[in-house]
């Protein structure tokens, strides 16, 4: 179970990194879904209430599906300037691993560390983007990861909020209205 929790934590980091790197909505939605599923699998590996992983996974998938509403394929998946974001994600992973390494011994600690790393990368994306859908997708991941840091009420609240943010129109036209 310990190895599964570690692998799931890695998946959640991979998901949020994909979201941080992607300049195209499909990649962002995939990153969101992976981050949610990774956190859900890590939570499941701790042997917690089955509702918690179901809420995290469901919240991530619903938010990702809603983010694809009105999607039109773009030509470019990665714009120039994504390297600093990749470096940022790696730095976050290393720092969280170094600072919270003590907690890696227990599956509960792994979930919390994964959630901290995911939320830090998600907020980094919110702080650096000027696009509405990117900000909303990162907000959904942030809600999921903050929920995963706490108990069942926080997990359910995080999943509900992630889904609610998915329901907000992410088109730039919504902003111009």
């Amino acid at each position: 179970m310990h190895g599964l929790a570690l692998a799931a934590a890695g998946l959640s980091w991979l998901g949020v990194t994909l979201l941080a790197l992607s300049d195209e909505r499909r990649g962002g939605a995939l990153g969101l879904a992976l981050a949610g599923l990774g956190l859900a699998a890590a939570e499941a590996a701790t042997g917690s209430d089955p509702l918690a992983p179901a809420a995290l996974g469901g919240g991530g998938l619903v938010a990702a599906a809603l983010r694809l509403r009105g999607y039109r394929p773009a030509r470019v998946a990665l714009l120039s300037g994504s390297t600093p974001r990749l470096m940022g994600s790696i730095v976050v992973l290393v720092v969280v691993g170094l600072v919270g390494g003590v907690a890696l011994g227990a599956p509960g600690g792994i979930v919390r560390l994964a959630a901290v790393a995911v939320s830090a990368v998600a907020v980094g994306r919110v702080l650096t983007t000027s696009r509405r859908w990117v900000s909303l997708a990162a907000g959904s991941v942030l809600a999921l990861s903050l929920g995963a840091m706490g108990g069942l009420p926080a997990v359910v609240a995080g999943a509900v909020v992630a889904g609610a943010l998915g329901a907000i129109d992410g088109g730039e036209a919504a902003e111009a209205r």
Partner: protein
Amino acid sequence: VISARAPAGSRVPTPPLLGLALVGVAATIVALVASTLPPGDGVRPPAAARVFLVASAAALVLVVALAPHRPGRWELLAVGLAALGGQAALTAVADPFVIAVVLVLIGFGHATRPSPRPFAGRARGPAFAALLLGLGWALAGTPGPAWLGRAGALALALSLAAAAGLLPYLPDVDAREPASSSYVAWAGFFGPALALTLPGRLHGLSPDEGTVFGAALVGLGLVNLGWGTVGAWRTASDAAAWRYSFLADWGLALTGIGLFRPAGLAGAYLALLSIVLVRLPLYVWARPALPGEERSRLGPLQVILIVLLAGAAPFAGFPIRLLVLQAATQAAWPLAIFLLLAMLLWIGHAPRLARTVTVPHGGAAAGLWLTLALSLGLGLAPGLLRAAGGL
């Protein structure tokens, strides 16, 4: 699906906004009624927060019914009720992680309001505040070296400043932006609700971490007090001067909370009530003149406003200053010297802000006098409000 805004020019709330308003009313009622539940439940706002919710509802009614130049009054009412629900959620929830999640929802929801500033920029402050709150609480509960817990306590204090848009997280100010979309919603509505309840939710902090949390709040309070008083006096723009005046109020509130003395907590509670009941409505009344930087002539109304905004007796600012000074002298008297200096400097920007409030007519005039009466009530009967808030 949820755009939470009416089409341009519409004065009637859209169905999603109407739904959010109903949810907001329900959340507020639940938060107020939850006081009858036995202690220990997950949803139970403290007495001070319940008084604050009622005060916020009163301020909302005042602004919606009587503020000058209020196109789309019904839409403003719907947005206000939804915001009141958000405030109720912030005060009622006991788990800091859930509070962080609620902050994310409110932050992104608020960013959908029409504004000259872009959505992504307006969502940054609340998202960062939520991260600091979650990170801080996670670090405070992590077994490991003591410095981790202290860093967590520092992050918790910074999360309050980030949520309210205080130094070092000042958002942009645009004089054309409606108050409901601007920084005022956080500095004058959501932020005070969080500041009133969050310190009481952090029972798990060790004495060492609690000291760091308090010291960080006092430090942030002094920086915001100094920056706010000088900034409001010296800045070129009247719109920025109003923003700095919020900072100065927050400076007193944060210092009062961080001192962890009964007098300081009472002063902070009154300061936060004064922000929502007096500072926020006065800003709304001054707003029509801000984009054009118009100044009114110095008349009797402006003289009264100068006395009020300077924090002199018999208005709300006076007991707040006395209580925070009392707490400072009990904790560390040199702190009182700095506070006294800042309070003297505070007088400098009062005439400037007072002259941005033009003399209104009709209902708007009644609203302005009502705001002055509320400040007078806070100043003359602070004991009643302290008793109601259990402070």
